[in-house]
């Protein structure tokens, strides 16, 4: 485990999180959320939790994002904040 890498990814995670909730487009938010999940997946892998990383990759970055996008398509991309 390389702590510098770890720290860098953690920072990215935080940035993605903030971005996902601030961006003024829900589709963008969904995609950023996917990126966030992917970063987390990397983080888990670095921290040695391979099973969790695997699950996060398939569930978080994959299916969740697809769900988000599907829902946003079915509703609206508009958001005020």
């Amino acid at each position, binding site marked *: *485990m390389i702590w510098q890498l*770890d*720290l860098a990814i*953690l920072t990215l*995670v*935080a940035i993605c*999180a*903030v971005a*996902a*909730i601030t961006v003024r487009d*829900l589709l963008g*938010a*969904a995609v950023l*959320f996917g990126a*966030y*999940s992917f970063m*987390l997946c990397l*983080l*888990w892998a670095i*921290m*040695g*939790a*391979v*099973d*969790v990383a695997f*699950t*996060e990759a398939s*569930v*978080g970055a994959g*299916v*969740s994002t697809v*769900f*988000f996008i*599907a*829902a*946003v398509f*079915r*509703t*609206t991309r*508009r*958001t*005020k*904040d």
Partner: protein
Amino acid sequence: MDAIIEIAIAKYNYWMYISLMMIGLYAIIAKNNFVKKIIGMNILQTAIILFYISISAKRGATIPIIRHAEGHGHEAVNAMEYMNPLPHVLMLTAIVVAVATLGVALALTVRLYARFETLEEDEINDQIREAQ
């Protein structure tokens, strides 16, 4: 000062999970859009996952898959060599729970949109008030 920096570095994972949690809570409480709230909810859940995974980390240990497979099964396993597997297991469950919650939440959002044609909480409240 050094001590503080040391604490800050030694526990940065914990600081991070707290800040992620706060981001998530902020989004749930303060954001006006329901999809944003749901994203916040997910961030909150992943923050907790981060916390658990941080617990399981052990310096100088490797992933919890026993290396010497068949044949060496009776050799004593040195627990210090492996990460703590239990939080991983718990977090597998937590991730699955999170995606299940997400599915239901998004389904509700779709229903909500079909009814109100908007996802903004204040606009929905206005509509309800007008209807009364």
